[in-house]
């Protein structure tokens, strides 16, 4: 849809997007027939290369390719602050990607089996299992699993809350990207 524009320079500025830079049509000063063949070929190769790179970048991006620091737990401490809650404090040596907190906790929970127990209160079914990740005294993330179906079903991932860590470079999942 065209908007009313009175001056050519205004139109040019209106075309400048806020979030993404777009380039306008290339200014052509000669017809293709006026171009030497090698030059036309060069232009075509450049265009092909450009779009190829763009497509490659899109595919890489869609595949979610990124690097992430290795997941390594230094120490794990188990406690039970409530009768039906298990808390695991996990000491790590570097922040992880947000999904990795959940995935690692899920693996640990699977190792516990479907019916983890609080040994001090064996008659009370565990309602919540939380993994709290920290470096020293600083909490980086908490992953909670709760029984679904208002507390009667299986333990499922309820939420993962990742806190920003000043001074650490996280992978792209956790960076602002607008």
């Amino acid at each position, binding site marked *: *849809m065209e*908007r*009313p*524009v009175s001056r050519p320079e*205004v*139109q040019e*500025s*209106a*075309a*400048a*997007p*806020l*979030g*993404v*830079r*777009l380039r306008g049509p290339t200014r052509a000063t000669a017809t293709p027939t006026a171009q030497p*063949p*090698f030059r*036309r*070929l060069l232009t*075509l190769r450049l*265009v*092909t290369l450009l*779009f*190829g790179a*763009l*497509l490659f970048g*899109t595919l890489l991006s869609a595949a979610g390719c990124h690097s992430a620091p290795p997941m390594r737990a230094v120490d794990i401490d188990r406690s*039970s*602050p*409530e*009768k*039906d*809650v298990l808390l695991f404090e996990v000491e790590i040596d570097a922040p992880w990607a*947000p*999904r990795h*907190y*959940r995935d690692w906790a899920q693996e640990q929970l699977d190792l516990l089996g479907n019916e983890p127990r609080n040994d*001090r*209160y064996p008659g*009370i079914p565990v*309602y*919540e299992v939380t993994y709290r990740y920290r470096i020293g005294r600083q909490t980086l993330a908490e992953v909670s699993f709760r*029984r679904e179906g*208002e*507390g*009667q079903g299986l333990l499922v*991932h*309820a*939420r*993962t*809350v*990742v*806190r*920003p860590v000043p001074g650490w470079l996280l992978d792209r*999942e*956790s960076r*602002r*990207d*607008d």
Partner: protein
Amino acid sequence: MTDPRPFGPLRAGLLGASLLAVLLVLPGCGLLYSHNLEYEDFSLHGNHDVHQLRRTGDTIQQVFDAYRRLFPHLEEKVNECRICYEEDPLSRERIFTGDLRQEGYYLPVLDLIQLSPRRPQGETDDLSVIFHEMAHHFLISAHPETASVYWLNEGLACCLEVSFFEGTGELRSPLFHPTLFLQAQRLLRRQGSTRFREELEELLDANWFRFHRTDGRNDSYAYSWSLYWHLLRSSEGTLEERIHAILEMKPERIREEIPGLLRELARPAEVHLHSIAGDRGLRTWALEQFSELPAVRGEWFIDELEEELSIERSPKTALNPRSWSVATRLMNGRVRGLDRSTRNGWHGRLAGALSREDLPFEIRCAVAEALARDGSRSWAYIEPLIELLEHDLPELRIAAARALARFSRQKPTVTNPIFWRESPAAVRSVEVREWREWYARLRR
């Protein structure tokens, strides 16, 4: 000799596919999305749950309508737009990061808005990105020449992104962005006034690359918002008239306002929130912002809080659970400068609300939930919370159990809501008795 077939089949295929991808992506074409909804002022495209998409669309239409009322003269020139909605992939997996800024961008040349709002803590999208991008669309539709004036566009959008809808559906725009204010203050402290001013002046003429440079992008938002906010405060009239006044300002005139901005930034955020809290329609919002500050002096909000919960003076907010929730958070937060009797008086009042059968149960739940979330600095709440464990309403029992679990590490309890909702009273009474015994020992 040159190749007689510069377009081999492979190269031609690659070029064609690339062109097609670009052409499909750039206009936000509906072909790319599973769900395409048509609204009065925009089309909405998305891939995920269509019911969620429809709810988002209704909200966007509400924002559109509200902006039309807010900008009755701009409104005539606003184009229809296409909006592509991507649910934040992390939020979809119930992973919430601490990032404050939401995702989205606007392409004026295509009247295209891309939204990918995050859900900072909860289940619903934060509306700020919608308010933000829609502000770009309204301003640039009416004034295309502002599309490349990045500080001005982002300044206005950041002012409007803190807007919210009241219960009645009316749009309220405080314009004051606490996060960006604190960030601008930090920049001023770190850089000093001379460098701050130079940075700001440089930003007034910044191109896209300078404004969005990786190392200072968030700072650019803070600079832009603070200047625009100050200019709005310095102008008179309706919001639309003030926006026009800023559009008409010469660059020299804008630069002359920077010393005034520096004076505003030198004052604490509490001063500005206190001023906003004087507006009855913005008071609850302002009190909530007080509760989010790292530390706050009580004298800046205590009178407004009193007014907020006064049934005689403010019957509407005095019966609003949100007001009671923020009162609980404030009085149990990092408040300085309140004398002991005032503080204890408030704890007594809030704890008393837990026992008041004449109050709606939503208010009592709101107080208990606020205690469960943020903890407490007073023992005054324990006894009424234990009483609530035996209440007839399961919602109150669940909220009280959650709050009590927050109080003591020495007294483990059962947090499972199904226990407090459905267990027979005789089973629950064992747990209640334990709490009473624990509290009796504590008092001795």
